[in-house]
């Protein structure tokens, strides 16, 4: 595709994604971001602008995902990434479950019908499915 893995490294300390490590990486990010910034700040509206934004975002999202899958990683990088992502997941899970619990408790205390944000429940369910599939694959292939 367009970007090359050697232009980037895995973002470790500020969220997820990629961090440019060469001038080519920074130029690539600027090229991706600049049209979006221009369209949004110039308040360009209309179907064409929206279509451009969508296509631009999709193309470069796919490109960056491709780079992320091709980033060279040795065994130590993989172990560190696995541990860090697992810790991040536990932090997210605790907050989500606490959030769901709080919502339900608040509704119960108020005497109203207990409602829970379905997006949170879907996210938790997606996590359970992903973990199950991952473990099936790992048990079978390792």
């Amino acid at each position, binding site marked *: 595709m367009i970007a090359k893995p050697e232009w980037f490294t895995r973002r470790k300390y500020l969220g997820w994604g990629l961090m440019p490590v060469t001038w080519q990486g920074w130029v690539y990010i600027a090229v991706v971001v600049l049209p979006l910034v221009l369209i949004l700040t110039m308040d360009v509206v209309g179907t064409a602008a929206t279509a451009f934004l969508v296509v631009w975002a999709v193309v470069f999202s796919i490109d960056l995902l491709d780079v992320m899958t091709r980033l*060279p990683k*040795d*065994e*130590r*990088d993989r172990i560190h990434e696995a541990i860090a992502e697992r810790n991040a997941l536990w932090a997210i899970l605790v907050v989500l479950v606490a959030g769901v619990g709080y919502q339900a408790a608040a509704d119960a205390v108020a005497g109203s019908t207990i409602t829970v944000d379905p997006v949170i429940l879907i996210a938790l369910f997606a996590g359970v499915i992903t973990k199950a599939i991952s473990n099936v694959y790992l048990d079978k292939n390792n």
Partner: protein
Amino acid sequence: MENEIAFYRNKSGMTQEKLAELAGVTRQTIISLEQNRYNPSLLLAYRITRALKMAHIEDVFRMR
């Protein structure tokens, strides 16, 4: 586990970057190994031993 990677690397006049390239890992991993902050897998231990042109893995790595 302890290792003599730095000793044998310096003896052969190899840089950390070169050893990393030969072993298929990053320079940061070689640094962590030489500082005994990381225990390699058996495969990586063999790769490093071979990259250092050592005959036996036990000459490079040993249990504490």
